[in-house]
């Protein structure tokens, strides 16, 4: 007779970057059901819209999460600018693309290290964080901050990145790309890594669609969903296609992220060729307040994020609502964990790239 035991996973666990709690119902070593429970880093950031005016909410939006902070700031600004019906200068839009794609590369390299650490490959973890320092140096030279950049504002950017700086950045991109490839090739091609990731955590395409999976979790199952295809803020005019893999297991999701790193370098190079001199800030007159409602959809490294802003004509927003990609990926995670072995749970949790600070705001 098989007996069921319940094993708590998290909130303190060596593989988790942020605390989430899962109650795993086990029969011997097989996971039968996983019940999530969140709320360990809930800060109630959405209520701060009542206290801070809409210009200052950029600082709050950037600090929702440390890994995806640049794109949170950019997404908030895109939503606020749509409510104000203003158009930012072209150079600002292109610089936002460069900062956003560098941030995406850094997030995927960080994830690669965490996944390797999840099954004990610590040397790859240490090397990937060494490569991440190269990218953070590029970003610190351009924007002034390593993790929180503070470069977006409603109306454009707070300061310009001049052409000499962009030339220096372009000169270093080849070196950084070679280092990134040296890290990610073992993650995809090495046979011992493949033994841990191929066939593990299967998410068939119809179930991924029904459960509302977003980002590489959905693209690894064959759904071609990428919010950058909407063509917002500097992305229309660039040549690229969403990266899709059909394996629907952990290996496919890892392959999507690895190929996205190469795609991001290509997008940065395309933008650097297309950028022109010009203004970077559209000064919003004091007294102009957002009115109406709009849901901006931006692609974060982890998937599609929705910034729903509602303004009522005053300087404080009526509602500031962020639906982050990991919140949408919780249901697919619960589905993927059914039927897996206990030792595969850390690997599966890490392949959705959990960013729990984003989930709980």
């Amino acid at each position, binding site marked *: 007779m098989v007996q069921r035991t319940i094993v708590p996973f998290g909130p303190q666990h060596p593989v988790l970057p942020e605390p989430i709690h899962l109650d795993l119902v086990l029969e011997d070593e097989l996971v039968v059901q996983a019940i999530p429970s969140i709320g360990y880093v809930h800060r109630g950031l959405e209520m701060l819209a009542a*206290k801070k005016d809409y210009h200052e909410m950029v600082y709050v939006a950037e600090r929702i999460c440390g890994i995806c902070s640049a794109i949170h700031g950019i997404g908030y600004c895109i939503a606020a600018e749509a409510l104000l019906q203003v158009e930012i200068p072209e150079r600002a839009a292109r610089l936002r693309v460069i900062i956003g794609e560098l941030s995406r590369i850094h997030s995927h390299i960080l994830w690669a290290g965490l996944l390797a650490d999840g099954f004990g490959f610590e040397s790859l973890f240490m090397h990937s964080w060494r490569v991440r320092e190269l990218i953070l140096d590029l970003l610190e030279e351009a924007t002034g901050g390593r993790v929180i950049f503070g470069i977006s504002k409603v109306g454009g950017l707070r300061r310009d990145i001049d052409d000499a700086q962009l030339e220096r950045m372009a000169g270093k991109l080849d070196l950084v790309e070679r280092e990134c490839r040296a890290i990610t090739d073992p993650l995809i091609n090495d046979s011992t890594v493949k033994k841990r990731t191929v066939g593990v955590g299967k998410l068939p395409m119809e179930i991924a669609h029904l459960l509302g999976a977003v980002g590489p979790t959905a693209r690894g199952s064959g759904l071609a969903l990428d919010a950058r295809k909407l063509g917002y803020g500097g992305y229309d005019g660039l040549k690229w296609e969403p990266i899709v893999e059909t394996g629907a297991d952990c290996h496919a999701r890892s392959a999507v992220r690895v190929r996205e790193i190469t795609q991001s370098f290509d997008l940065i190079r395309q933008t650097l060729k297309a950028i022109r001199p010009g203004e970077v800030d559209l000064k919003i007159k004091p007294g102009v307040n957002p009115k109406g409602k709009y849901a901006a959809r931006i692609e974060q490294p982890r998937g599609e994020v929705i910034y729903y802003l509602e303004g009522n004509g005053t300087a404080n927003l009526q509602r500031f609502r962020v639906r982050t990609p990991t919140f949408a990926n919780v249901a697919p995670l619960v589905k993927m964990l059914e039927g897996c072995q206990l030792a595969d749970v850390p690997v599966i949790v890490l392949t959705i790239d959990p960013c729990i600070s984003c989930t709980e705001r």
Partner: protein
Amino acid sequence: MTQFIETQEVVAIAREELPARAAQLAKDGWRIVHVACINQGDHLDVIYAFDKGYKLVNYKLTIAKDDPVVPSISATYLAAFAYENELQDLFGMKVEGLVLDFKGKFYRKRHEAPFNPPACAATPPAGKA
């Protein structure tokens, strides 16, 4: 560069029609994007957003504050359990027919319904002092 603002339809529906509409959308291949609740002061708006082929459609319910009940769509869209538990926890709403119901304990929090506080609690001051 033209500013990109996508047109997003808002369709107002009654709360009784919601489960039937969700079942029809699932059959047509729409995917659930998010469920948001806005505290408008005297009533609550709940918005259910669905997407197909990069087109976003919002379905809006208007709920009075003294009768905060919505039917659940988690029988069709299992992913909605996370959003509907959030409605219960943060706004004090009651969702009927939830497949995975945490009964207000999905988020570990100290206060009851922090985004829609009961009448005796003080509202936060608007604007910076």
